């Protein structure tokens, strides 16, 4: 029994050792796998967090091991960030130039992608600009022209007041003579100014015309865009011209196109000015007997010749 008991513990020990070894061998690859996956995935958030360009999933410089829980979370986060990092790497062309090709004020071509907000395809920075451009292009474009005829008791004072009101509204006097004004008023302030001017005297006549130039505006905008594109192509051709003759021919086309472009731009500027600033023509006259209110169908119209106007008139 003693001999039998003797080697038994040894064999048992050996058996235990081999079992442990075996189990450790079996466990190790599993551990190794989890370790490997963590090491790979942990790099993604770190890059996003530290402003890295992303995409270097197998970075050797992995941060210290987090807890398994954290490893799992990061795993999920990494999956989310995968897209963003890919978007980050998108070629700059797609996020730079606006479709209209117009230079942006401030020099910066586009707002850069910062922070950890993922960029979804719906929220591409291109999209709002595109919409704004389209909105502007297809909004109703109207030129307002108005006329106001007033008879006033105090001509000089009224004329001065009319000028003050115009300047206060951000407009300007385009033409001025005794009792006659051509005013340019910012379009949104036109109605208010007309009402204010009406209080300077008695309104004898008032009119307002609206001319819709949306079609012309859109046409011009499109024409300018196309001309610009053609201009760019011609410039490229000019660069690649091999002979002087070729270059001269391209140059001639370019000159004609540039002139056309300038004309279109001039017309657009004029339209924009007319749309932005309405034209208000004001005629003022001193109130007199001629302004007395006539009585209709009056067999004795003598009172029409009486009154403040007839008496106070200069």
């Amino acid at each position, binding site marked *: 029994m003693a001999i039998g008991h003797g080697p038994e513990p040894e064999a048992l020990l050996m058996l235990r050792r081999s079992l442990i070894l075996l189990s450790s061998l079996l466990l190790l690859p599993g551990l190794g796998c989890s370790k490997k996956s963590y090491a790979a995935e942990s790099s993604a958030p770190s890059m996003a967090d530290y402003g890295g360009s992303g995409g270097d999933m197998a970075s050797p410089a992995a941060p210290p091991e987090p807890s398994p829980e954290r490893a799992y979370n990061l795993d999920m986060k990494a999956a989310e960030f995968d897209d963003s990092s890919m978007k980050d790497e998108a070629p700059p062309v797609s996020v730079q130039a606006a479709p209209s090709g117009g230079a942006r004020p401030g020099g910066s071509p586009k707002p850069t992608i910062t922070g950890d907000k993922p960029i979804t395809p719906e929220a591409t920075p291109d999209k709002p600009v595109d919409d704004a451009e389209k909105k502007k292009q297809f909004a109703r474009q109207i030129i307002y022209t108005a006329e106001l005829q007033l008879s006033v008791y105090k001509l000089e004072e009224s004329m001065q007041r009319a000028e003050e009101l115009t300047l206060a509204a951000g407009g300007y006097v385009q033409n001025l003579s005794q009792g006659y004004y051509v005013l340019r008023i910012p379009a949104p*302030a036109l109605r208010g100014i007309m009402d204010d001017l009406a209080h300077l*005297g*008695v309104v004898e006549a008032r009119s307002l015309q609206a001319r819709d130039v949306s079609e012309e505006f859109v046409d011009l905008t499109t024409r300018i865009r196309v001309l610009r594109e053609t201009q760019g192509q011609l410039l490229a051709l000019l660069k690649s011209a091999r002979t002087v003759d070729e270059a001269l021919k391209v140059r001639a086309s370019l000159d004609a196109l540039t002139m056309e472009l300038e004309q279109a731009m001039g017309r657009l500027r004029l339209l924009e000015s007319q749309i932005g600033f309405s034209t208000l023509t004001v005629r003022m006259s001193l109130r007199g007997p001629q302004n007395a209110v006539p009585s209709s169908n009056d067999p004795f119209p003598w009172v029409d010749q009486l009154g403040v106007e007839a008496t106070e*008139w200069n």
Partner: protein
Amino acid sequence: MKTLTTMHRHVLLGLAFLVLPACAAYKIEPPVGFAVVSENDWQTRMKAQDNVGLNLQRFENVKGGTLAFWGADLVKKLGNRNYTLVGQSAVKTKNGQTGTRFDFDAQTYDTELPKFYTAVLIVTDEEKIVLQIAGDQQYAAAYRARIPELLRELVVRGCKTGSKICNGAQPPPLSTPIAKKPAAEPEIPAVTKTADPSPAQP
């Protein structure tokens, strides 16, 4: 003898020309502070330094046109023009012609400039004569107080002996509708705004 007759005729003609202006429907000397701006057969216009106007005007009268009739006509029509009657009284001219004085406050249509207006109406067989004085409301008290003084300078002619028109009754107390704002002028259709603020539109 023949020469003398011709001379007499010329003298008579000259006298007639001299007498004619004296027979004009009215005569007024510019009161202190007023100067004549224009004058013709039908009206005399004067102005004071503070832009207060004095206007004497005459119109032909028609059969049946009494002081009461024309007084009511005047008040009604001025009332329609946004004048408010604030006083009515009987007056007399320098040569004793009776008339009616009407004091109005005038609030013009669109302006907020208050004005005063006083009309003195005198009706004769031939004509109706209106003495008017008007200006900014701030001068109303000062100039209305001078009306008796102005009437003392006024001579009105054209009354026949025993005329019923010239000695006609005063108009009954008259009134105007309470100062109202006249019907608004045709409104300019409202302009609809577009969603896009630029370029701006009213």
